[in-house]
């Protein structure tokens, strides 16, 4: 089973040279720590920045420089700042290559629910709707199950849906999954020490396991 940091490390391997990427709040934010140095990639913050750098040194905190999670950040060389309409023009216009988002649930046909909901009340829709409707390749990072043990990989989403048929791959603490064109979660990789039966037990939606499923490497 992977820790959240390990899920982030695994996702970082999906990143290709030259990509512009939007990272959501939670596990996706951690991905930034594991992007290999030799790759040229740019991180977008949808409140108006291309070129997110690491968290600042405490002496360099700037209240006028925050990310979409309202955390203080820094900028890398070659950054640019813009307004919120321009930020979403970039997303909607297909200029962002990849979006890595957290989720409450994913359905077997690739629908995603990831709105912040507190005791039945939707607390916000934020920027996710634009990201899931864009041309950005959508990767989902989440724990495989809710705290009560119920699966987050479902036949159909139970929470309100943020986007339909938009998820490309899912990265959980148990494995990596793609969405099959005909519907269903295709298991691509297992987390170290996790066997396919455990994944089957914890996946409510249709799970497809074909042949030998490789165990992820590099987490020993």
């Amino acid at each position, binding site marked *: 089973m992977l820790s959240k940091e390990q899920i982030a490390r695994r996702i970082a391997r999906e990143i290709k040279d030259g990509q512009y990427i939007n990272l959501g709040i939670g596990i996706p934010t951690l991905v930034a720590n594991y992007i290999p140095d030799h790759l040229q990639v740019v991180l977008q913050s949808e409140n108006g920045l291309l070129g997110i750098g690491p968290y600042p040194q405490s002496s360099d905190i700037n209240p006028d420089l925050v990310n979409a999670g309202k955390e203080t950040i820094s900028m890398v060389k070659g950054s640019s700042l813009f307004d919120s309409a321009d930020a979403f023009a970039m997303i*909607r216009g297909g200029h962002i290559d990849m979006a890595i988002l957290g989720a409450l649930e994913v359905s077997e046909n690739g629908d995603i629910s990831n709105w912040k909901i507190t005791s039945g009340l939707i607390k*916000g829709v934020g920027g996710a*709707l634009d990201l899931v409707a864009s041309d950005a390749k959508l990767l989902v990072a989440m724990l495989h199950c809710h705290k009560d043990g119920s699966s987050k990989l479902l036949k159909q989403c139970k929470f309100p849906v943020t986007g339909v048929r938009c998820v490309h791959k899912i990265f959980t603490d148990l494995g990596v999954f793609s969405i099959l064109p005909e519907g269903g979660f295709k298991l691509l990789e297992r987390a170290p020490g996790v066997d396919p039966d455990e994944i089957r037990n914890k996946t409510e939606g249709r799970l497809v396991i074909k042949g030998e499923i490789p165990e992820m490497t590099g987490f020993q």
Partner: protein
Amino acid sequence: MINKEVRDAEDAIRDITDGSVLLLGGFGLCGIPEAGIQALVRKNLKGLTCISNNAGVDDFGVGLLLKKRMIKKLIASYVGENKEFEDQYRAGELELELIPQGTLAERIRAGGAGIPAFFTPAGIGSELAEGKEIREFDGRLYLLERWIKADFALVKAWKGDTAGNLIYKGTARNFNPLMAAAGKITIAEVEQLVPAGELDPNQIHTPGIYVQRIFQGAGYEKRIENITVSP
């Protein structure tokens, strides 16, 4: 040039009344019109409609207006960090319209730019699409969305000049330029107000035409919602 300078926040908001529709700049607590919000709180208006990406926190930003029960309806994309909001909403005292952030930004941009409606893919398949016109273009589905305009826009910039030209700083720009263009009366508060001619025309983010009143605020707190540092 046209001189837009007013004395202070009180003077700037003099004709905002009960029931006014307001655009309020900022993202979270970053780049919010602190002085304008404080002046509104002192004026203690009722029945405001506020369009703001967020609802602030309980004791800062738009949260201050919520606390005094000045807001009748809130139009926002995310209202997470605010307990006051939740209580009033559950008690049925507050209307809420949630709009996807990109759609909110584009609708306000459309209001300023004279575009009454446009199509966007955001929201297709979600419950936010209910009751909206859906149309296919080039094999893909889009929702029809309307412009947003308001009686007043309150925006915050870093530098401004007496002609109303504004320059923002960092990610404190966010919704401010869009809102400046979509307010019938736009009130800009700045950290530094300089005479017209001192700002480089090539570096202006909001041209003065969009700003009806400008003043220099004082004592900006610039509260940070989440302080995060590198080890």
